């Protein structure tokens, strides 16, 4: 009989390897064939075998190497069974899969970045890039990803499957792009990571485990990219931005109720994360190329500054939004800029700035526009209009805590 202690140890070891190396093993197992789904199946069988063999036989000295060897054997088995349906060239690739890359010391090369670039390739539909990275690099299953991205497991599974099939059949290469296109392609990877983070961030009440975890996993991916590409300022900027936001997670809620940034208790902010974010932004600024994520990180930094000085320098904030607007003419940025103008020059200036973005049709269904409008109008004393704007903002909000917050604000207008 297997002593349960060894069983526990083996399970813990397998879990640790999965956490640390899942994407690394997948990347090595599909580098030649680009057959991500086959690599996933083979690796999952290898993990199952580890759980049955490690408790009695002991954990191998090189668990990653053990898993790759077993998974390779599975890949070859499958290809033998399907030989008829496979071209000779593809069979040769399978035989080579996972083999050529492993050093004589058993060291597995880190190809996760190449895999991420394939997942965020411009030929892959933008909305599936973040889910695909979460699945291939971190091993999330479709159901978990679906719950995080508010989609049905079946639909998410189908979209992930189609994307993997595209990587394989259309010949999307698993490699890092050439230096001249690295920046553009990296933006897509960073966007996907930020999309994952934002989905997790959208539910800071952390009622849903999958969504709370998502922010943490996105941070992990952000860190991974900065380790693999330490000289890319935007990668540093994204990590800083996410750390700044994450640092305030606990301050965003008081007894389950939403607390806006301006009213948060800065004693609840995570000082370590803020410090790390500030250092990252500083390092990014020495690399001589400004971008969206660095600017957004700097904005967070400007807000956090009130911890030391007791106040936010709104003229700095407005300048940062101006710079952001130049890079991306996003209505979201314009709304936040209008709010900052309202703080710097008074509410009527803020309302005037907001009017200039109101022409954008997309804003009609955009909660932050109505919340911003409601806030500025109520401070300007335009009660009736403010009430109307609050109504719409409340109707568009999906987070119940934020909805209650807006309802309280609206209620305060009655008095």
């Amino acid at each position: 009989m297997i002593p349960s202690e060894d069983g526990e140890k083996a399970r813990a070891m397998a879990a640790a390897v999965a956490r640390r190396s899942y994407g690394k093993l997948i990347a090595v197992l599909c580098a030649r064939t680009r057959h991500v789904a086959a690599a996933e199946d083979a690796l999952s069988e290898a993990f199952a075998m580890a759980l049955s063999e490690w408790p009695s036989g002991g954990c191998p000295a090189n668990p990653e190497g053990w898993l790759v060897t077993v998974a390779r054997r599975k890949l070859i088995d499958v290809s033998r069974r399907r030989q008829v349906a496979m071209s000779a060239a593809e069979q040769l690739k399978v035989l080579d899969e996972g083999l050529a890359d492993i050093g004589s010391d058993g060291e597995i090369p880190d190809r996760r970045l190449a895999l991420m670039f394939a997942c965020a390739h411009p030929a892959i539909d933008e909305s599936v890039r973040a889910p695909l990275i979460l699945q291939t690099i971190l091993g999330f299953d479709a159901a978990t990803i679906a719950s995080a991205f508010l989609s049905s497991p079946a639909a998410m599974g189908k979209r992930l499957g189609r994307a993997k099939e595209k990587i394989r059949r259309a010949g999307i290469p698993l490699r890092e792009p050439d230096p001249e296109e690295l920046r553009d392609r990296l933006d897509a990877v960073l966007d996907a990571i930020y999309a994952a983070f934002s989905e997790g961030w959208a539910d800071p009440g952390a009622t849903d485990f999958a969504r709370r975890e998502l922010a943490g996993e996105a941070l992990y991916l952000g860190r991974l990219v900065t380790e693999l590409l330490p000289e890319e300022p935007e990668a540093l900027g994204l990590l800083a931005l996410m750390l700044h936001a994450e640092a305030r997670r606990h301050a965003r809620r008081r007894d389950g109720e939403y607390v806006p940034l301006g009213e948060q208790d800065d004693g609840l902010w995570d000082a370590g994360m803020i410090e790390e974010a500030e250092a990252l932004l500083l390092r990014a600024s020495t690399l001589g190329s400004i971008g969206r994520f660095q600017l957004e990180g700097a904005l967070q930094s400007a807000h956090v500054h009130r911890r030391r000085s007791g106040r936010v320098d709104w003229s700095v904030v407005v300048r940062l939004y101006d710079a952001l607007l130049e890079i991306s003419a996003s209505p979201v940025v314009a709304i936040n800029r209008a709010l900052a103008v309202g703080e710097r020059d008074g509410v009527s200036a803020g309302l005037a700035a907001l009017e200039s973005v109101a022409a954008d049709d997309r804003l009609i269904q955009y909660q932050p526009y109505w919340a911003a409008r409601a806030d500025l109008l109520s401070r300007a004393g335009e009660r009736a209009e403010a009430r109307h704007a609050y109504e719409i903002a409340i109707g568009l909000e999906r987070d119940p805590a934020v909805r209650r917050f807006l309802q309280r604000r609206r209620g305060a207008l009655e008095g």
Partner: protein
Amino acid sequence: MQYLLLIYSQDGAWDGLPKAVQEEGIAAYAAYGEALKKAGALRESARLRPATEATTVRLVNGKPKVLDGPYADTKEQLGGFYLIEAPDLDAAIAWAGRCPGSGHGIMEVRPLWVY
């Protein structure tokens, strides 16, 4: 891998172009074909006559039903193609981007079925 690069452009627009522009276009396509050949990437290529000269055929009740015109009645029509050999999609996209068709129309990159 083999990829088919399909050129979709406005049908009939060519005829309306001034002669000098047409000559420029022909020279650009010739140079592109030459570059593909030099790189050893070209398998096949052709320019198609206008979609107004197309005919569709399908079986209805076991008999071919023939209709005048192209299958899809869109502003942009398939106007020509290049069949190329490329190591991966990025290389195929790079060739599609160099094709003059990406300037006056839209290029579609399709991998061929591998048996």
